[in-house]
């Protein structure tokens, strides 16, 4: 009971899972863990907690009760929320003002549990996985305006603010985005919001060949028609899309155009001409079907309930075809997002030999991979994230500067970090 006396709040330190609802409680928990060198797993809404290496943590800091919108200013284009706030709650609030999170956070719920769970804003920032609009609007990190968080000593720190232009001091928003909770417990997050486009349509090109698809995507992204999404689904995924205006169920390339009504029609028309498409080669999805199509993409719904291992590979567009050709195995299912530079690869079976091959190939093609879903018995020994020795050394130093006793998610990204 000694621990309990140390607490100024009503928390009991003997429990293993903390569910704080105030910042003061979070500070107390972290300070205690720091003092006693107790490793702490930071968790939100469990939507992405399976991503990352296995690690031992004596206690869990569950932020799902630390939620709520603190300040939403549609005209200033930002929303400030507590870190445990569900993405769904934020999106609901933005919808009322015709605004959105333009980076389209992936919903990993379908992949891991068969149903939607888009997670919390804290988790989305910690993982920095952006959806299809990435090549046009940037990643999660490009939309994080400011944060307040608790470092590994229990000190409350902040960086950034609520204005878009701010170069005061180091940009800690960037280093925390994608740090998988290993540097700081995020408490408050200010994130940029943007107007929803008036309408959107999708040009669907029927084609089974990845090479041709990449040509279409490359040409579209380099055209002045300004697309906001570009995907390729091979033949075996075509049947996953049942939409009124989608007349075929084979391989398809989808290109999204957004903006004012007239402009969208004009650009769709122009794009189909620029790509020299015959009338029977393409169809156009209206805004309702477009929303369904791109939601399925951001939710990775083609992998719903799949037992396969899922790898997220990012390479420059010029390398995508070669990477796919080199990694082609009988049990590989994949689709391409981000206009050609993100490949979601599902393998029924993965072993260290195949993984080192993937590692080598992505590295040689100037890219990287992240293991998203992986069979349990292989997980302990696999490299989930890739890193080179120099960056490992720098990462170690940065980790120490935020979390000197390595209490936050120790080992979740790399051994020793």
């Amino acid at each position: 009971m000694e621990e309990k006396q140390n607490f100024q709040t009503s928390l009991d330190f003997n429990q293993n899972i903390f569910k704080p609802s105030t910042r003061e409680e979070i500070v107390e928990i972290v300070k205690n863990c720091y003092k006693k060198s107790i490793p702490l797993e930071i968790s939100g809404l469990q939507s992405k907690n399976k991503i990352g290496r296995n690690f031992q943590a004596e206690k869990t800091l569950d932020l799902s009760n630390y939620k709520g919108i603190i300040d939403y200013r549609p005209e200033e284009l930002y929303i400030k929320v507590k870190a445990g706030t569900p993405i769904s709650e934020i999106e609901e609030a933005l919808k009322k003002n015709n605004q959105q999170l333009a980076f389209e956070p992936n919903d990993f719920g379908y992949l891991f549990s068969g149903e939607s769970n888009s997670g919390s804003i804290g988790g989305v920032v910690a993982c920095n996985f952006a959806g299809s609009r990435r090549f046009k609007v940037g990643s999660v990190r490009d939309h994080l305006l400011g944060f307040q968080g608790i470092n590994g000593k229990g000190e409350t720190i902040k960086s950034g603010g609520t204005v878009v232009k701010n170069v005061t001091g180091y940009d800690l928003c960037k280093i925390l985005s994608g740090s998988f909770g290993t540097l700081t417990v995020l408490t408050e997050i200010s994130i940029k919001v943007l107007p929803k486009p008036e309408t959107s349509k999708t040009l669907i090109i029927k084609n089974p060949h990845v090479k041709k698809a990449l040509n279409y995507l490359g040409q579209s992204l380099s055209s002045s028609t300004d697309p906001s999404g570009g995907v390729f689904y091979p033949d075996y995924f075509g049947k996953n899309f049942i939409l009124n205006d989608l007349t075929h169920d084979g391989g398809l390339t989808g290109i999204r155009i957004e903006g004012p009504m007239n402009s969208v029609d004009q650009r769709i028309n122009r794009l189909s001409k620029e790509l020299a498409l015959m009338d029977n080669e393409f169809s156009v999805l209206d805004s309702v079907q477009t929303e369904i199509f791109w939601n399925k993409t951001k939710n990775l719904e083609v992998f719903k309930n799949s037992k396969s291992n899922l790898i997220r590979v990012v390479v420059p567009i010029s390398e995508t075809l070669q990477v796919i050709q080199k990694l082609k195995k009988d049990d590989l299912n994949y689709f391409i997002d981000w206009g050609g530079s993100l490949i979601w690869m599902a393998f029924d079976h993965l072993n260290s030999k195949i993984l080192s091959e993937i590692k080598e190939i992505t590295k040689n093609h100037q890219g990287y991979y992240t293991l998203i879903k992986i069979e349990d018995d292989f997980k302990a020994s696999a490299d989930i994230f890739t890193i080179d020795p120099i960056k490992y050394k720098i990462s170690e130093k940065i980790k120490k500067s935020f979390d000197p006793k390595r209490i936050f998610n120790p080992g979740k990204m790399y051994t020793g970090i």
Partner: protein
Amino acid sequence: MSSLQMPKVDSSILSKKDKIISDIGRIINPKNVLSHPDELRPFETDGLTAYRQMPMVVVMPETVKEVSSILKYCNDNKVKVVPRGAGTGLSGGSLPLEDCVLMAMGKFNKILEIDYENRCVVTQPCVTNLAITHAVQDNGFYYAPDPSSQIACSIGGNVAENSGGVHSLKYGATTNNLLGIEVVLMDGTITKFGGKAMDSEGYDFLGLMTGSEGLLGVITEVTVKILKSPEIVKAALIGFPTIEDAGNCVAEIIAEGCIPAGMEIMDKALTKATNDYSKAGYPTDAEAMMIVEFDGTEHEVEAYIEKAKQIAEKNNSSSLKISKSNEERLKFWAGRKAAFPACGVLAPDYMCMDGSIPRGKLAEVLREITRLSKKYDLPVANAFHAGDGNLHPLIMFDANDKNSLKKCEDFGADILKYCVKVGGALTGEHGVGIEKRELMCEAFNDKDIQQQLTIKVALDPNSLLNPGKVYPILRKCAEEGRVHVHGGKTKFPDIPRF
């Protein structure tokens, strides 16, 4: 020169000056080591000309290996290093120190690769911002961030300062348009962060380095993304009878879901000055003048311009012109882009401030600036990247009058403090440098600053790379009662102070 405390000069380094020069002359071509006062003079200041200091020596490396060897040598011998690009920075980020090696990156001036397939350009850091656009514009591409010094400023400097420009509302600042960098750390380590692929594995060091003002590493290569030039660009020139009307118009345009490529406001004083200077045809009777620009495809731009026009009329616009040709559009901008030289005509000197505020606070902040202008008895003209809340008051003064410079600096500091007070930031795009260093305690408490300093120490344990910039020298902050000092001891006695 106004007094500003800089890191203590290390007399043992100065006494070894000749040896250091000859040692470095063995690392790189001795012709690229400058030490004669006549050679050093051009490097004594940057865009913040009120501050001058001759460096001990200037080195001009030609390869990344040379950069690495010099940094390693300086690190081993505890010699301070100040990196410098084109020297156009407005916050004094490359102001030399008396006992420093000034590393001038001017020889890194080549574009290395233009890759249209991946829509990016790989370049050395001292290529100018505008040269990147020039290199790709014939193929219909451009590099989006456009700081007003783009004709002269270097892309490496843009990365170090995270420079913005008039189009950053729609296209973001440097950090949002950067794919990768090669960087040399103070211990000589050469590494690459990012590359041609989007985002990167592990911690986002690319993001951390961007805007770190030369304190964490020296940039030796930059990969930026390029965009397809928009099919059409149109601008509207709108006059308003009050600043409030202009401010409301900005807020409504944004709320309506139109994101302009640029949205600029100038107050009456600057409208008149720039119009006299450039004959841009501005409505000089208006209290505020706005240029709003949209780019995209024809239908898209027409739709947005029409919407902006309706919103402006609703907000009592007193005049409204829409560009009918590209020439006319450029004429609208000619005055705005001549804002600085126009102020140069009005007063012997001016200082350009750089605060960021919530868009909705525009009228309130401008009223406060007017009040302060009377208090300090110094004229001021205001330019404002209204779309993203970035305010540039131009305070006019006479540098030959010491009292006038001091008044100008105090006036500027009061403006920035007010920006922070209304929820904004000390600097939107010019950086902290030495100019706003002492104001950091307005924006951050000591825990925030100490967290940032521990990052600095992690990468540069001896604090040799660009010391004295960005973070307040402790004594000054403590005197002002902003950093908590207890019993004469700071909270982190192991952290070197600079």
